C-alpha cells in the first residue's frame, strides 16, 4: 500500500511539475515573442529594424564587449520613435476618441438593450416577437452586407462624429446584446417584479430598482464583448466617421501607411506598443470577466 502511494505520488509529480511546466514556459515565451520583439524594436532606429529585428546591436557580441556596446548605442534611439509616432498619428487624440466611443457606446448599449430586452420578454405581442426575431437575424448578417447603405445613411443623418457613431454602434450591436439579456431574463422569476409593481412601483422603478441589479453579471458580459469589438473595430468607424477630423486608434495606425505603401517602421513599432499597452493593462485587471464574457459569447455561436 505504502509503495503504491509513493509510486502514484511520483507519477503525479512527474506529470504535474517539472518538464511540462518547462516546456510550456518556453512555449509561452515563444507565443508572446512577437510582442516582445515589437517592444524591443520600438527603441531602435528605423534603419536597423529590418536589418536584424532580433538584435540590439549592430555588432555581434563575439566581437567583444566594447564594440557591442558601441553598436548598441548606434542602434538604440531611446524614445525618438515614440515622439515621432505620437506626432504622426496624433495618438493622444486618437486614444481619446477610441476611449470615448467605446465607453459611451458600451454604456448606451447596456442601458437601452437591457430595457428593451426586459420589455420584449415581459410583454407578449406581435411587435415584441418580431423585434426578437430580427435581433437573432441581425447576428448572422456580416457587416459587408450593410456597410455601404449604413455609412451613407449615417452621413445623411450627420452621425459622422464620435457622438453620432455611438448611435450606429447601438443599432448594429443591439442584436447580440438583446439576445444575451433576454436569455437571462427568461430565467429569473417574475414574482419579485410583480411584488414590486403591486407595492406601487412604476415599471421604470421596478426595472432599475429590482431587475437591473439582478442583470449585473450579464451586463458585465455584454460590456466586455462589446468593448472588445468596438475598441478594435476598424471598418465601421473608417466608413462612418469623418476621417479627416476623427481617427480612432486602428484607423490612425492604418493611415500611418501612406497611399503608396511606404511605412515609417520606427513610428509604427512605437504606435503598436502604445496601442497594446492599454489592452494588456485592461486584460490583467479584468481577466476573470473577460474569460466569462468570451464563454458566454461563444455559446451563442
Amino acid at each position, binding site marked *: 500500500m505504502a509503495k503504491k502511494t509513493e509510486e502514484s505520488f511520483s507519477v503525479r509529480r512527474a506529470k504535474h511539475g517539472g518538464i511540462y511546466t518547462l516546456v510550456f514556459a518556453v512555449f509561452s515565451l515563444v507565443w508572446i515573442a512577437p510582442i516582445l520583439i515589437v517592444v524591443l524594436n520600438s527603441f531602435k532606429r528605423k534603419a536597423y529594424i529590418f536589418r536584424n529585428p532580433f538584435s540590439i546591436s549592430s555588432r555581434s557580441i563575439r566581437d567583444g564587449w566594447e564594440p557591442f556596446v558601441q553598436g548598441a548605442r548606434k542602434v538604440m534611439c531611446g524614445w525618438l520613435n515614440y515622439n515621432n509616432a505620437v506626432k504622426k498619428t496624433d495618438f493622444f487624440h486618437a486614444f481619446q476618441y477610441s476611449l470615448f466611443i467605446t465607453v459611451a457606446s458600451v454604456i448606451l448599449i447596456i442601458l437601452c438593450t437591457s430595457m428593451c430586452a426586459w*420589455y420584449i420578454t415581459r410583454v407578449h405581442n406581435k411587435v415584441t416577437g418580431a423585434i426578437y426575431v430580427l435581433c437573432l437575424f441581425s447576428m448572422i448578417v456580416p457587416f459587408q452586407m450593410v*456597410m455601404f447603405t449604413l455609412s451613407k445613411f449615417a452621413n445623411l443623418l450627420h452621425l459622422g462624429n464620435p457622438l453620432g457613431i455611438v448611435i450606429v454602434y447601438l443599432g448594429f450591436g443591439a442584436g447580440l446584446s438583446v439576445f444575451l439579456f433576454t436569455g437571462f431574463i427568461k430565467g429569473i422569476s417574475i414574482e419579485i417584479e410583480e411584488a414590486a409593481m403591486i407595492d406601487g412601483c412604476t415599471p421604470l422603478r421596478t426595472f432599475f430598482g429590482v431587475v437591473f441589479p439582478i442583470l449585473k453579471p450579464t451586463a458585465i458580459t455584454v460590456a466586455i464583448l462589446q468593448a472588445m469589438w468596438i475598441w478594435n473595430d476598424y471598418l465601421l468607424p473608417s466608413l462612418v466617421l469623418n476621417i479627416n477630423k476623427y481617427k480612432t486608434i486602428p484607423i490612425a495606425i492604418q493611415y500611418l501607411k501612406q497611399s503608396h505603401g511606404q511605412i515609417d517602421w520606427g513610428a509604427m513599432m512605437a504606435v503598436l506598443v502604445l496601442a497594446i499597452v492599454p489592452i494588456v493593462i485592461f486584460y490583467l485587471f479584468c481577466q476573470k470577466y473577460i474569460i466569462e464574457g468570451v464563454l458566454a459569447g461563444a455559446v451563442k455561436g
Partner: protein
Amino acid sequence: MEKAIKKYFPIFVLPTLIAFAIGFIIPFLYGIFLSFCKFTTVTDFQWTGFDNYKRILYVNGVLDTTFLHSLWYTALFAAVCVLVINVVSFTIAMLLTKGIKGTNLFRTVFFMPNLIGGIVLSYIWLMLFNSILQHISKTIVSTQWYAFWGMVIVVCWQQIGYMMIIYIAGIQNIPGELIEAAKIDGAGFWQSLKSVILPMLMPTITICTFLTMSNGFKLFDQNLALTGGNPGKMSQLLALNIYDTMYGTAGWQGVGQAKAVIFFLLVAVIALVQNKLTTSKEVEQ
C-alpha cells in the same frame, strides 16, 4: 403586470428600435434593393434587375474570375484555419487541464493575442514576416501563397487562445467519473480520448468549428493590413474583394452590393447549419 408595462413602449423599446432601424434594418433592406440597381450613392439609383449579379462573373461578355478566385481562396483559407486552430487549441486545452504548475499564467499568455485588434496584430506580423523573408529576397506579398500562409499564421495566433478557453470549459464539464471508469476498464489514453472525451466534447467541437469557419469567411482587417489583397488582388478574401469592388472602382458599387448579398447568403447558410447541428445535439442529450 403586462398591461402596466405595455404603455412604457416609448421609453423601454423605442430608443433601441430607432437605432436598430438606422444601424441594421433599413440598411439591410435597402442594401438588398440596391443590389438590383445602378447607383453611386443612396439617392441616385436606377433599377437594372439582375445586371449587377451578372457582372460579378461576366464583364462585357468575358468571364471575370476575380470573384470566383476569391471565393475558393477564402474557402481554402477558412478550411485550413478551422483545422489548425481546432487541433492546436484542443491539444493545448488537454494539456492545460492536467494541473500543470503555472497553468493560469500559461492560459493568460495564450489568450492575450485575442484581445489585440486585427490591424495592430497584422502590422506586428508584417514586420516579422518581411524581416525574415528579406533573407530570401521575398516579401509577404511576393506570391498569393506567402500571403495565404501569412494570414493563416496571424489568424491562428489570434484565435487559438480564444478556442482554447472554450475547449478548457468543455473538458472541465466532462464528469471525472466517466474518465475514471474508462481507466478502470483498462482504456489507454487514446482509447479514452476516442471513446469518452471526444464524444462528450461534440457540442464544444461544433461551436468552435463553426466559430472559426465563420471568422475565416468574414476576415477583413488582417487581410487589409497584412497583404492589402496583393499581389494584384490574388490574396483578396471575400470581404476585402467586396470592399474593393465597392470603393475601389467608380461605377461598380452595384456589383459590390450584389456580391455582398451573396456573401450574406453564404455566411447565413453556415450559421443555420451550425444552429441545426447544435440544437439537434441538445435534443439527443
